Each structure stands twice: as C-alpha cells, then as structure tokens.
C-alpha cells in the first residue's frame, strides 16, 4: 500500500461543493506534480463526488455527514495508510489558494504542523463583531499553549508531517470547532511544534456562508467552551 513518500497528499473536505470542487482540484493538480488529491465527500447530496472524480481526485465518499472533523480524520487515516510523509488540508470552496500550498508546506521544515494564517498581515481578510473577538481570543490562548505566536488558529489551511498525521489519526475530534482548535491544542500538548505561514484568502467562488450576530455569539460561546475543555485535558495528561 505504501506509496512514494515524497508525494504530498492534499486532503479536500467537501460538503455539497459541486460548483467549486472541480476547479479547486484542477488548480491543486496544476500547482505541483507531487500533489495527490483526495476529496472526502462528507455526505453530499449533490454531485460533489462525481465532479471531484472527473477532475482527477481520489474520492472517499462518507455515507453521511460527519462534519469537517470527521472528514479530516478520514483523510489523515488515508494519508497514514498510504504512507504519505506530508498532508495538507485545502478547503473545497476555493478560499485557500492552491498556489500557497508550497509555502504552507515549507513551514513543515521548522515544525510538525504548519498553518496558513489569514490575519498575518497578508491579504484583506476581515471579520467583525463577536466572531472576530472569538478568533483573537482563541489565537491568544492557543499561542501560549503552542509557545509560538499564532494569529489564526481556526484556519483550515494546515499542513502536517508524519508525526502530526499519526497524532491526528490518534485524536481528531469531530465536535464543532474541535476540528481546528481542539486538535491543535491536543497536538501541542502531545509535544508537536506548530508554526504559521501568512497567506491571503480568496473569497468563496460560489455560495455564501453568512452568519448573523446570534450565530456569531453562539460561535464565541462554543469556542470558549471547546477551548476550555481542551486546555483542561492537556493539564490532566501532563499531571498523570
């Protein structure tokens, strides 16, 4: 089963992204010939899987929606079984520019996990209100745990080396927000190093993920809750 370990697995979690996924895959495949693309179709009800297959990706079809966390764990398990030494998550909606994949991967030279960060003074990505406070707060706390300055810990644009892939396969929470923050805190507690690479994000190609003030407040509450739990878990592990 083991494949060439110099190849990079690009994991694309996709849920009802038939309008965007094919374009994203084509862009990734043309960016570098070392990239293999695996699309995790997270229980889509549209033609995401067919579109992804036609565009040249391997497609893992989940029979029902597991959430981004579940989809990513599937992707990392695939990466582990096929012996990839590097894997990177790229969202299907086109927000992550495949041209930046190489830069984010280069972060793995100095750390186990490399995050393509939106707030690192590149690009004009902006959010306001509770959601922004939540992101700033989370970034501050996770930075302390990871002992390095991180500005965007909820970014899904992140690369992992073999150590990190193994850690993710061992523990990658499916809970909401767990997929980004909890997995990061758990990885940091397990002794993995984290770094970030500034990247610009693009607007979604099709569709609009709008969120009102109530949604943002719930996001803030849940993120604080998830983070608190993740932090307490770490301390327990360290104590025992």
């Amino acid at each position, binding site marked *: 089963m083991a494949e060439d370990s110099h190849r990079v697995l690009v994991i694309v979690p996709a849920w009802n992204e038939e309008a965007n996924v094919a374009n994203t895959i084509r862009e990734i495949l043309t960016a570098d010939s070392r990239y293999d693309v695996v699309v995790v179709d997270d229980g889509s009800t549209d033609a995401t899987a067919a579109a992804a297959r036609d565009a040249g990706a391997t497609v893992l079809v989940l*029979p*029902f929606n597991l959430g981004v966390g579940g989809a990513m764990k599937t992707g990392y398990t695939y990466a582990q079984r096929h012996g990839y030494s590097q894997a990177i998550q790229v969202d299907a909606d086109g927000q992550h520019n495949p041209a930046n994949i190489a830069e984010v991967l280069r972060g793995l030279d100095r750390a186990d996990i490399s995050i393509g960060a939106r707030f690192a003074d590149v690009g004009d990505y902006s959010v306001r209100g509770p959601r922004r406070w939540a992101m700033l707060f989370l970034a501050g706390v996770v930075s302390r745990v990871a002992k390095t300055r991180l500005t965007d810990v909820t970014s899904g644009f992140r690369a992992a080396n073999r150590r990190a892939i193994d850690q993710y396969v061992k523990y990658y929470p499916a*809970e*909401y927000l*767990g997929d980004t923050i909890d997995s990061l805190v758990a990885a940091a507690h397990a002794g993995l190093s984290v770094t970030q690479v500034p990247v610009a994000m693009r607007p979604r190609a099709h569709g609009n993920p709008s969120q009102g003030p109530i949604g943002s407040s719930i996001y803030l509450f849940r993120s604080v*809750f*998830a983070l608190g*739990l993740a932090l*307490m*878990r770490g301390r*327990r592990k360290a104590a025992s």
Partner: protein
Amino acid sequence: MIVIVGIVFALFILAMIVWMLLSHRLREKYAILWLVIGIAMLVLTVFPDLLTVLAQTLGVQLPANLLFIGALALLVGVTLHQSWELSTAEDETRRVAEEVAILRAEVEALQRAAEQGEA
C-alpha cells in the same frame, strides 16, 4: 446537615460530568443539559430560600412542586434529546450496513472477475 449532603451531592454530579467530558466519555452536545441540571442543583442547595422566593413570584403554592416541575422539565428535555440522537445514530448505522453490503457484493464481483481472468 441536609444542606451539606445536598451540596456534596451536587458537587459530585458536577465533578462527574466534568470528568466524563475530559476523558471523552461524554460528548459536548450531551453535556450542556447535564451541566444546567448540575448547576441548578448546586445553586438551590446553597440558597434554599431561592426556591421559596421563586415559587411565590411564579404563584406556585408549594416550593417543592416548583422543584418537581423544574426537574421533570429538564429530565424530559434530556430524554427527548437522547431519543433524537439515538434515532439519528440508528439511521446512520443502517446506512453503514447498506454501504457494507453493497461494497461486499462489489468486491465479490471483482474477485470473480479476477479469478476468471487468471483461469
């Protein structure tokens, strides 16, 4: 004395919930309602007068009745939520079983084709 027993019990329940959360024995989505129940228990045991005041303002004759109504409402909430989640989980296992059955048939078809190719 009974107040101390109540506080100890409430604290025990809360500690249990947090421990289960930390050791991944309880998922966050189930924890919220249980935490509400635990905290309500703790508040009422520390401030028993609160129940009397609440009963008076709401027009409930016996404070104990308010407690029963509250407890019933929360427990009905918990059971309903669990029935909901269980139904979803049953549906998902059914779909996994379907998937496995179809995959097995397809693998067997492939094996047959491969054997015929060899022969």
